[in-house]
């Protein structure tokens, strides 16, 4: 299964990935609506892009309450899918994710997880540093 792999040592912290994630999904820019987030560290003199790894054993799937069942796997891409109607943004998946790759939507009652843009991830396509790749 293909997923987005991060090479943090190549990241310069320009956040162009955040721009294209946001504009790809919503036709607007809002870093808080981007499913990939870049964390800059002056202490480390480095930047770290955070994005869902689409783990095979995805703990987020198990954490979503039975009554809600908002998370599932996309059959075509294998990406974690969020059902916007049923998600309550309760935050259990956010806590369960070992990588901190899930976040709350800034305005709606739902969480944001990388959906691989249906198999053509925009962040990977537009990263000027080749810090992101979409591979097995």
């Amino acid at each position, binding site marked *: 299964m293909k997923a987005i792999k991060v090479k943090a040592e190549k990241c*310069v912290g*320009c956040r162009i990935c955040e721009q294209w994630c946001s504009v790809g999904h919503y036709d*607007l820019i809002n870093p808080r609506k981007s499913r990939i987030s870049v964390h*800059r560290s002056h202490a480390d*003199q*480095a930047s770290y892009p955070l994005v869902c790894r689409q783990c095979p054993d995805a703990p987020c799937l198990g954490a979503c309450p039975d009554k809600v069942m908002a998370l599932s796997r996309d059959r075509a891409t294998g990406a974690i899918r969020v059902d916007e109607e049923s998600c309550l943004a309760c935050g259990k998946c956010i806590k369960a994710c070992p990588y901190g790759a899930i976040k709350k939507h800034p305005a709606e009652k739902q969480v944001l997880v990388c959906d691989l843009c249906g198999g053509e991830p925009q962040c990977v396509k537009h990263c*000027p540093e080749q810090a992101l790749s979409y591979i097995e």
Partner: protein
Amino acid sequence: MTIKGIAGQLLRVDLNRKTITREPLPRRLFEDYLGGRGLGAYYLTKEVDPGCDPLGRENKLIFMNGPFVGTMVPGGNKVCVTFKSPLSNTYSYSLAGGHWGPELKFAGYDGLIIEGESEEPVYLWIDDEKVEIRPAEFLWGKDIQETDNLLKKTLGDPGIHVACIGIAGENQVKLACITNDVFREFGRGGCGAVMGSKKLKAIAVRGSGDLEFADAKGLKELVEMCLPVYKQHPKALDRRNYGTNELVIHINNAGFMGTRNFSEGYAEANREFEGPVFREKAVFSDAACYGCPVACSKYCKADTRKHGLVKLEGPEFETLALLGTNCGLTNWDDLLKASAVCDALGLDSMTAGGCVSLAMECFEKGILSLEDTDGLDLKFGNCEAEIKLLEKIAKKEGIGADLAQGPAYAANKWGAPELAMHSKNMSFAAYDPRGAKGMAIVYATSPKGAHHMLGPVFPMEMAANNRFEEKGKGLLVKGAQMNFVILDSLGICSTNQAGFGRPQQIEALRQITGLAISEEELIFKAERIFHLEKMFNVKNGFSRKDDTLPRRFTAEAMTRGASKGQTVDLEALLDEYYGVMGWDRDGIPSKEKLSQLKLS
């Protein structure tokens, strides 16, 4: 909440009355003034008396974003602060890159106006529509890095963006800067002192609003088309490898790199600072401002014998020259340390470097004694003395108190006015105008003092192989000045214009805002903005008598290097330039000119 490139809103904070108000930014203002520097000119000239005390209650700090800020336009991150300068007593503005400007826009504000002054130290916390003026006793006295850390801890979010002042700003040192994201400065003109006079320590911002576009699909296609070409542009590659320090080799070889208080324009020792050496000895990693595919910023790290571990983002070329070669420094360890000290104190490293080099020349010539310097052995190249002097300036101690008023003030007091390398009390950038005559006009006529980014024409002069010519430079300078008004107003970093030129900028402006503005109209608007800035000073009594250069540039020929023998004929340059601008012999815009620009 919805923000668009235009039709946004402005946040106004009165520190006396402790009021916070939001006001709409009418579309008409964006059409006339574009944003950023242009809107700053509109508001400052409308609201601030040219004769006011820059460190008094009447002065304002006007932060303005351009329509490109926060968008996918490469390098759309430059935010402009406009204010009356305590250093030059003139109109002033300063631009910063980084991530703070975009964050302010995501919080829902194209601009922020700070007015009045607080009695107690405060900071401003802007969290989308929630805006608070909070006590800042716990931050007062802290350096830039500590302030940033403490605020992130206090507000419980490491992802916020902070603009703040260091102790130099608190002490109203006239060369104090405002710093965002720890290493990105609104450097010049003393805006940090203005912020300090208002007892405003910091502005912390978090934004989660939408930035919408008139034509998102078009903008996506335009940026996608430009980027691949762009990354391969030679200038972009040079900047990527060596940052702005790629300039060292060109400027030093051409013999006009400020060295030892501009007594020289070339030194063999300066070669230590060339790009490849920089990359090898100082650079740890590359870094980028928001949305920039060039990533010219460099994180530097050195485990030095003299200064211990030194870590910083930077130094940029101007810092390298002014704090470095101009003070006789010859190695990276010393330069990185001096730069980090300025960063922590919140000093403009350029004018600070100009102040230190002035003191060094005065010391070497016997004008300042060891007693005057409180025992500092201020010989050129003595980094320890330089660092101690920088601290004295920030704390206004001993001769540092004189230099805290600016280089011209100190040199006058010490009886050596000709040794201050300044125009309007601001130190020069790295480029000695004897080696690129157009720069003489840029520096001398700049409304804010000797700054290069009003119209950096030296690369064009070098490419045209006419850098020593005086004739014809008036028109060249005017063109560059108007170009920079446009870039600074739109909010795009000038490094990015190589791959994203005027046609792309015009197209992007339409796609972002819906405004269709032709190149001719843009230039007209730029000229109008430029004259608004100019007239603020004219109303305050500024004229040709203030468009000056130090005697060293006009009367002392360069002694060595590839600009040897050169001096500047400033009067001839000014005559031609004033003519091109439609100004009279005294440098005052004619009535016809102002009415043509619809300013009378």
